[in-house]
């Protein structure tokens, strides 16, 4: 498909708002293409992520949403055959430029993964690892405070404050995921990327995490990839629909789920194809 014929569907009201610069843009991505060796996984994605709100990326399996997410904090660098082209600009800095320090980038853009992956260390060690390696804390007392703050923000403090030395892997699934979120926010990032964070959790744990995301968006920009449309509908303010590597439609969540512009979007969210 030629890139010239690709147009992402955007509702008129949304386009007007965006063009007027009425929102604070955190990530400004243009013509993003990702290749795995010879195979192209993302085709010319133009997408803006706005500050202090939750953007959901939805789409069927293999549509490229996780690939796009991982390009934002250059986690795709760990895959040898992966090549990213296009502009991914975080606050006026091109994330793939030579001057950018990947380690510093990942401190600004944190990530929470699908399967909770706490380090096989104590809860305290898990949360303080990030601040320690980046030298954020100025002493043990400072570190203790950061750990406590992060665990409180992640909604886990009350459950673990008496056993900070217990191994992180001994917690339940939902608690482990909240620990991973606490670990991510301990480095004071600006953006939190979440790759299907609730897919391994039961409904109550999921609900707690969704509540947490709602609270977090006051201070962080959040991009979440999810398989569940209901979750995207509950949790996000903006939703982007990906299909076969193309960004098909992006807009306000309410509009996407009540009256989407593109037929493919409608077919996907009503369950007419998957």
């Amino acid at each position: 498909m030629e890139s010239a014929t690709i147009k992402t569907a955007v509702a008129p009201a949304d386009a007007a708002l965006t063009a007027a610069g009425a929102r604070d843009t955190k990530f400004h991505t243009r013509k993003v293409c990702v290749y795995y060796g010879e195979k192209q996984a993302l085709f010319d994605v133009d997408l803006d992520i706005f500050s202090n709100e939750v953007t959901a990326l939805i789409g069927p399996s293999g549509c490229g949403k996780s690939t796009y997410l991982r390009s934002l904090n250059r986690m795709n660098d760990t895959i040898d055959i992966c090549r990213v082209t296009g502009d991914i600009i975080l606050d006026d800095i091109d994330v793939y430029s030579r001057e950018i320090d990947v380690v510093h980038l990942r401190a600004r853009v944190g990530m929470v993964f699908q399967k909770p992956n706490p380090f096989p260390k104590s809860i305290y060690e898990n949360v303080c690892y990030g601040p320690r390696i980046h030298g954020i804390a100025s002493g043990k007392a400072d570190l203790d405070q950061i750990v406590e703050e992060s665990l409180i923000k992640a909604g886990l403090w009350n459950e673990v404050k008496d056993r900070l030395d217990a191994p992180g892997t001994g917690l339940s699934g939902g608690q482990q995921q909240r620990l991973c979120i606490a670990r991510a926010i301990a480095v004071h990032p600006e953006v939190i990327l979440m790759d299907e964070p609730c897919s391994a959790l039961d409904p109550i744990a999921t609900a707690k995490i969704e509540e947490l995301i709602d609270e977090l968006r006051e201070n962080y920009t959040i991009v979440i990839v999810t398989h569940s449309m209901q979750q995207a509908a509950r949790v996000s303010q903006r939703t982007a629909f990906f299909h076969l590597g193309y960004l098909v439609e992006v807009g306000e969540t309410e509009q996407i789920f009540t009256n989407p512009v593109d037929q493919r979007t409608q077919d996907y969210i009503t369950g007419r194809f998957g």
Partner: protein
Amino acid sequence: MATNHIVKSFDEDLRELDNVIAEMGGLAEVQFADAITALVKRDGELAERVVVSDKRIDELESKVDSHAISMLALRQPMANDLRVVITALRIASVVERIGDYAKNIAKRTVALTQTPPVGPTRTIARMGNVVQGMIKTVLDAYLQRDADMARDVRLRDEEVDALHTSLFRELLTYMMEDPRSISACAHLLFVAKNIERIGDHATNIAEQVHFLVHGELPGSARPKGDESSYTVVNAE
């Protein structure tokens, strides 16, 4: 819609909704037609039957209600599916009211059979025909999801309103000329009003059809030609 749902029972549920609405609408059409016929022919028995049959429409409305609520809870419909369920709820309620108006007309017909016949039944019959056509068209438009067909219905309401205004004048004149006809004319006033309201409800349904297809209510205000509220007839 282009394709079917992956889960077939979802499509079956939507079809069931359509079926019940279709049944309700058909019944309401028949009720209204019979009521007008009974009125014009002064047929008391037909009128009685209409009154009794309204119960069926009420039952069907309950059925649509519970089916729609169950679909909302169990299927979490989105986008156009959601609009189908919401409009089905609204339309069912509107059709139920149409049925009620038809029943009211029939009741008044029974009363009118006990008074000597009064003049302007032709106009009423004409109004009745137009509205009957509107009901049929709009229900077809709903079942075929045709917004253009529905738009025409909105325009025809202008005619109904005009007829109603002139009928209003006529009946007032009759009443002023012959006080003995006041009883009958009073009933006819209400009958005419009922028919005019049914026409308005038909346009409501048309607006819902537009919402269903396009995702938003029609922007332009519908033509309102009912000036009966402002009509005054003075005795010379």
